[in-house]
């Protein structure tokens, strides 16, 4: 399809995209277009708060106390379990944004430590290639901004609850673990990849939940950031 036709189609679908009402192939097309069209990104940013209004303008109900107990107990149990520390460090973690009462008073007790945005840094995109049969039909892009990147994939098989996809960085012939991610039911997913500068390849494998320190399977996808 022509660039213009591609733009018009994506633009018409932005509202449904913000509402989460696109079928998988439509969603993948809009996401691919958003990666290269600033006008559509800006328009989506304009529409997105309306979807947030829909999320909060529902009858407010107090969650049962047992839900808090259950959820926090499960989190505590997982925190105690032995998981690779380097993976924990590499993944975006929920962290206390600022200590003490000042943050609580602002109502900003929690933030998620992730890659920052720097409008002054150039962004470039490299394609993600299929490296093994289980990922046949998958596609994706590695969007690199400065030292960091976002890996966006489509068409990957959905995983069971005990598995995740994990990204790896190949640097000086060695593999370093990076973020884990899952895909939604349409096969679409994304991961933030920190410290991509200097890496010769970015790869994706399937790993047990929590991630691994060394890959337990052959790469499914690969991209060359340089």
């Amino acid at each position, binding site marked *: 399809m022509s660039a213009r036709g591609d733009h018009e189609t994506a633009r018409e679908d932005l509202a449904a995209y913000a509402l989460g009402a696109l079928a998988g192939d439509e969603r993948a097309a809009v996401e691919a277009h958003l990666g290269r069209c600033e006008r559509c990104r800006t328009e989506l940013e304009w529409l997105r708060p309306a*979807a947030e209004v829909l*999320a909060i303008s529902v009858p*407010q109900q107090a969650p049962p106390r047992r839900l*808090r107990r259950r*959820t*926090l107990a499960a989190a505590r149990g997982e925190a105690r379990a032995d998981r690779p520390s380097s993976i924990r460090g590499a993944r975006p973690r929920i962290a206390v944004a600022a200590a003490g009462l000042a943050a609580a008073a602002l109502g900003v007790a929690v933030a998620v430590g*992730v890659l920052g945005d720097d409008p002054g840094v150039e962004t470039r995109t490299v394609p993600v290639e299929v490296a093994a049969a289980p990922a046949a039909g998958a596609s994706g892009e590695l969007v690199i901004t400065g030292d960091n990147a976002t890996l966006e994939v489509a068409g990957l098989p959905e995983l069971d609850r005990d598995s995740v996809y994990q990204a790896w960085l190949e640097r000086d012939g060695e593999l370093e673990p990076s973020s884990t991610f899952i895909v939604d039911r349409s096969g679409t997913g994304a991961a933030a990849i920190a410290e991509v500068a200097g890496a010769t390849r970015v790869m994706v494998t399937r790993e047990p939940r929590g991630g691994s320190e060394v890959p337990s399977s052959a790469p499914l996808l690969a991209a060359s950031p340089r």
Partner: protein
Amino acid sequence: MPLVAERQVEAFELFYDRHAGAAYSLAHRILGDPKLAEDVTQEAFLSIWRSDSGYDPARGSVRSWALGIVRNRAIDAIRRATTARRPKLELRGAELLDRERGTEAGPEEEAIERETARHLKGAVAQLPPEQARVIELAYYGGFSQGEIARMLGVPLGTVKGRARLALERIRALHAEGLT
């Protein structure tokens, strides 16, 4: 437990306390069932805890990110629970349309926190009926725009147009503090 893990659990507790009310309410609105809403809320928070769902600050606030995860998981739960998917989902679509037509006052609604309910009368209620229908089916029903066009018997382009007008209107009302 190591100190780092301890701090992460504390941060997660704060995160839970700040967002669980909105998350559970949204799940309840979509699923119409307190037990299912509980399961989905727990699932969503634990996926956030595990950082399986990456947060990108360029895509909005932490709250809208978290509620987006809740919404998607609630919709997934509907689809999982519906074995013969298409016919039952379309039945559910009819139910959603009835709900939006104003048959709202059930016993569950009595549990609504009065103040919040007064403040948030429901963005959908302020839309023209044809736009409200599209929003109801798309956002709370989890139907794709193609499915909605078939259910309502209108062209796909009409659904796209209504979805956009609805979001633009909600955005404007919100900016005026009316939602």
